[in-house]
């Protein structure tokens, strides 16, 4: 007689077994908000058809992002897309039920100005904290004045906009981060905007028109990143500024400025940056700094400066002088990056022997990492590298990346010869 042992099969009753229990719908509201917030808006709203409980969960998500993923098709017909998008955003805003903390609008086909006005009005009533507005097409968009009433704003990011706050505008009390790119703003408005936001910690300004003299008065500012065309930059009252990245996109004609005052731009620049930690000097800004009198060393050393990045033309005497002054003024430098600017014209004062001379009274005592890029192997550049290698006792890595393949071999042969002060130094050659 055989004994049949029957395996216990899982229950197939209509009543729910442990494995079939719906565990997600009853998670706490804020957790569901988190989950839905991480979905693209489309998926989040579509969760309303999942089940009874999920019908209005999406309406509570505090952050609405309308970007290129909103519409899952593209079409050549501009007005069709525009209508669809406007429709969707209108619907979502209308059906949304709860505070909106973050609103991002960044669709490449978006054009309709009055629509955006309407949406901003809607969110301004909703204690909004973060606004990101990227207008990819069309003229500079002028946000309505209700945007400037949002006193809970913590982060404001505008792209391709025209800023004209109402006269009554007293600033954003809670604004910590301001990011303005491709904007039009007048000098007064800009100064007032920055100075009336006492909590401002981060300021990004790229490609602006209307401001020529940047006056930054922000006591809590820590991060400052600008790139554009301006004549002057000065920091008032920026004790905490620790990250500065400045790019001047226009070549200054040095001869013109010789006649003017001899005050040192360099000195003025650094006088209010006592605790600067990272500095990036991009495009032609070094030329700007080199204007006027350049001391051999700054009176107050930048003791906190750990990272320095300079875009330089190694053949320009004034730029070299300014760079040397800087290098002498940061005793605790850990990382250095020198980017060679391709020369556009031969300047009057070409110095090819600058770095040959012995400039050093003290060494790069802490310098660990150096990157030199965009070089083409000319004498001044090689002199600089040689100078660097023989004066950095704790150097760990020097990375060299030429601008082109021309003269590669010569460059490498020379590199090989240079004496190194640090026994740990690696010289890494990267392909252009």
């Amino acid at each position, binding site marked *: 007689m055989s004994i049949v042992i029957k395996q216990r099969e899982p229950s197939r009753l209509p009543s729910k077994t442990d494995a079939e*229990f719906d*565990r997600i719908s009853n*998670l706490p509201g804020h957790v569901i908000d988190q989950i839905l917030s991480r979905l693209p808006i489309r998926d989040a709203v579509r969760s309303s058809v999942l089940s009874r409980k999920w019908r209005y969960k999406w309406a509570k998500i505090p952050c609405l992002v309308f970007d290129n993923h909103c519409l899952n098709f593209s079409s050549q017909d501009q007005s069709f897309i525009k209508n669809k998008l406007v429709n969707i955003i209108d619907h979502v805003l209308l059906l949304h039920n709860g505070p909106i903390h973050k609103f991002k609008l960044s669709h490449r086909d978006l054009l309709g100005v009055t629509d955006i006005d309407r949406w901003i009005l809607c969110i301004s009533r909703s204690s909004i904290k973060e606004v990101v507005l990227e207008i990819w097409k069309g003229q500079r968009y002028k946000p309505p004045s209700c945007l400037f009433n949002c006193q809970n704003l913590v982060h404001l990011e505008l792209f391709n906009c025209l800023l004209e706050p109402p006269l009554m505008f007293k600033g954003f009390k809670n604004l910590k981060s301001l990011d303005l790119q491709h904007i039009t703003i007048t000098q007064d408005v800009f100064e007032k905007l920055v100075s009336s936001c006492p909590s401002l910690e981060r300021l990004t300004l790229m490609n602006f028109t209307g401001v020529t003299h940047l006056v930054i008065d922000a006591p809590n500012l820590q991060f400052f990143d600008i790139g554009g065309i301006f004549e002057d930059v000065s920091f008032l009252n920026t004790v905490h500024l620790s990250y500065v990245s400045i790019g001047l996109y226009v070549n200054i004609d040095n001869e013109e400025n010789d006649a003017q005052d001899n005050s040192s731009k360099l000195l003025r620049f650094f006088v209010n940056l006592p605790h600067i930690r990272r500095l990036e000097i991009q495009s032609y800004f070094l030329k700007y700094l080199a204007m006027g009198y350049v001391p051999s060393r700054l009176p107050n050393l930048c003791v906190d400066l750990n990272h320095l990045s300079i875009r330089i033309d190694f053949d320009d005497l004034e730029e070299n002088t300014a760079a040397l002054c800087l290098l002498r003024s940061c005793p605790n430098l850990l990382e250095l990056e020198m980017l060679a600017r391709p020369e556009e014209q031969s300047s009057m004062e070409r110095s090819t022997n600058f770095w040959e001379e012995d400039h050093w009274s003290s060494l790069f005592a802490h310098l660990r990492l150096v990157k030199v890029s965009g070089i083409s192997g000319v004498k001044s550049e090689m002199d600089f590298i040689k100078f660097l290698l023989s004066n950095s006792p704790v150097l760990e890595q020097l990375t060299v990346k030429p601008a082109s393949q021309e003269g590669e071999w010569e460059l490498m042969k020379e590199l090989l010869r240079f004496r190194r002060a640090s026994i740990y130094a690696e010289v890494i050659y990267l392909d252009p």
Partner: protein
Amino acid sequence: MSEVDMAVIKPEMMKSYIWLQTADGSIQQVEQEVAMFCPMICHEVIQKGMGSSKNYAISLPQRVNPAMLSLILDYCRFHQVPGRSNKERKSFDEKFIRMDTKRLCELTSAADSLQLKPLVDLTSRALARIIEGKSPEEIREIFHLPDDLTEEEKLEPLKNTTDDPRIRLLNRLYAKKRKELKERQKLKNIEVEEERVDDRSVDDLLSFINGDNGDSKGIKNSKSKKKNRRRKDQQKNTSANEAIKNHNKEPNGLNQVCHSAEVGQKVRAGVGATSNLHDVEDDIFDNKNELDDGDIDDEIDPALKEKIDRYCSYELRKSSKLTVSNEVTMEVEDFARRLNSDWPERMQEILSFGHERKPVHFSLNGNGSLRRYANSEQR
């Protein structure tokens, strides 16, 4: 085992432990620095001085069962070590999060109750990744969500999502099914009734079946009036809602009860209503959020109510799946035939909500025969 782990394990004798108790009563001890990674436990230890011994074990929230606790402690044990690089932490997280959805949800819940925000972030991200890009059917399948919305409700939130080809297809499918049903109804009916959208509430429906004379006018209610009724019907319909959620499918009792009927125009109205019962659902489930554990209308006898609800829920469930069968149709017709307009006054009082039509109800007993509900009788 990495060196760091070794360093943690070696001087075990010197370490201090925290005692934790899960909701099921089991107590375990955990290394202090690991447990203190959880803000909730940290708070208990520091503010209340708990956890130092077995008798004073910290009671963990109910959502933390032993299996989840062990997972959470694994997470804490790894992350509380300060020397790890971001890359290491990220790669640990990626591996850690690989588990089935059920456990993921439980873990999210447990981590949230312990206020362990980084873990909640991690699990929410994982859940979001699971949900992203999937169709509603797939999501329901994965998370075992009940498909308890009507087709109209699904379309309500964003009408322009009908542009989604899938929804358009679904709509066409539903429309086709509805059409099929209508065809079937027509075959049964001798007279052709004017088609109209029927979104009356349940009691209206039942009154139709009864064949109340005043009904023909009452069928076409104005919208505003319907709104009032909805509100008043809300309480009563709540239990219908409940019934649908919790009801085990036992149509048998009702099958006995529902006899086929042929009651002329009114019945057809009733029958027509049956096929459009999902509209009625719309009515009933109008104020969704507030209906959750609705108040039972005290005036209606609970037993009667239950029967009404079972009838409704049966019908509604059937129609929401768009599978109104012929049998049901027959049952309804028969049923309607059996009923006549001789309703007890009391019932009418109970069920009238202040509008002109006389709502009527019926009472059904177990063996299926219709019983008139007399005042003195109580079930």
